[in-house]
């Protein structure tokens, strides 16, 4: 492999990593399965879904949250704005929940594409992605303060 090929490979890896984490100032959107009956939810309701305080949607579908892996800007923004805590507090909360209730955190997905796959395959799915990654396989819902 030549030096130029190494540089191209490194640049490609960086580009993929950046795409999967979202741009630094990009907003997140909350996505659900297209059959979901809600167009908007309050931020406290979304936090109950992600923190597994609510286990089913009103029509009976099991809530299946997915969380972006890593500590990228999109995840950080979602955790602070919707869950009302920082990354450390969230990690500590899941340690407590595993021990006290036997409840594990949402499944971690590596990027927005995997989050969309997760949600599109489950009627109760819910996740968040960079707004630029939205497509017709999932439905975006508005998060009210």
């Amino acid at each position, binding site marked *: 492999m030549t030096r130029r090929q190494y540089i191209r490979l490194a640049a490609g890896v960086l580009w993929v990593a950046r795409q999967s984490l979202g741009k630094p100032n990009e907003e997140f959107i909350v996505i659900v*399965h*297209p*059959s979901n*009956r*809600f*167009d*908007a*939810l*309050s931020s*406290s*309701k979304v936090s*109950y879904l992600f923190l597994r*305080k*609510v*286990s*089913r949607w*009103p029509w009976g579908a099991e809530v299946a949250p997915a969380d972006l892996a890593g500590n990228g800007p999109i995840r950080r923004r979602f955790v602070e704005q919707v869950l*009302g*805590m*920082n990354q*450390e507090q969230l*990690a*500590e909360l899941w*340690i*407590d929940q*595993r*021990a*006290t*209730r*036997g*409840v*594990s955190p949402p*499944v971690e*997905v590596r990027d927005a594409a*995997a989050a969309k*796959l*997760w949600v*599109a*395959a489950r009627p109760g799915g819910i996740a968040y992605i960079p707004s630029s990654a939205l497509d*017709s*396989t999932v439905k975006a819902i*508005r998060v*009210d303060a």
Partner: protein
Amino acid sequence: MKYLQVKILSLSIAVGALGWAQGTPQTAGDQGQQVPPAPELPASPGFPLDVAGYINFRYVNDDALQEHDFYRDYSASLFLSKTVGRWRFHAELNADTAAEYDSNGIHLFPRRPSLSVTLDNAFVNYNARDWLQLQAGLLFIPTYWRTHRYQSTTLTVDEPLIDETVFPTALKGIELYGDRYWGGGGVSYIVYGGVDQQPQFQENTEVVAIESARTIGGKLTLHVPSRQFFRTFDVAVQRLHRVGTDGKPDEVYGVEFHLGKSRYEVLGEFAHASLDVVNGVRSYIRQGYYIQPSYRITPKLFAVVRYDRLDRDSRYADESSLARQSAGLTYRPIPSVSLKVEGDRYEPQGARLPAYYGVTTALVWFFHLP
């Protein structure tokens, strides 16, 4: 009978819908939209069981009544969980080298002076609704500290003096519980019954016996809505009635609160037991409380202080009281690792005896598989 079933069903749907009133459901016309075919499922975690636990080392050193005393304690806890549909199974196993901390649970192997292995908690949980769940097995009495007492969760090394002392520790029985959330607040309830177990202590630390009694109790927690002014604002009351083998009932109640805002957090519990009540007259009381403010200095470093008091037996009010002031630091370089150090000042016998001091340290590592 069928009419009753229909009524219960419609009531449960109505209650379920109530909690979702904040959301904006689509209109009927919206629901007709085309749903794209489900793509291939992303790979789910393949491990058949959720396995977590923590390994803990603590070192206690104090000068109780001028007798210099210290010991080391190694312990490990393992949590095994499995969720299948509406069913969840959970078990907690503990291995401990310090008999002082071995006060509840079912011994899995013959107990040795330097090692005990116990099943402390094991239950099956059925989730009918979030506001109606049933749990059966070996359960903890749901005081705040008992529920969250894990070294990987707590900021202090030592438990409050009232823990395991005023309320019983655990029970073999059933529990009906649930949560309802709306807006920024909610309510949680627990109703439980069974046969409890409570350690009988000698000189504040040594467990001399485990006493069992028929128990019924309940707890109501209000998650106070604060328009996100507080991160957590929980207030709870608990009531418990137990009848031991001697036929004399004990009446226990407790109040607790948990407040969190920004970097600040305050925990507090008060518990009171009227013991051996005969014809409405109690033989003696046992009560205590603690208040524990903490401050997150940096994302990884916490400062915590606690004031603690226990009056073990009102018949010997002076001799049986103990107060403690603690101040400590907890460093969490990563959320799964805790390094704790804490200094304690004890006031035995209502401060009639001279105060003594102690230092406790702990190193905790929490893990989960895969």
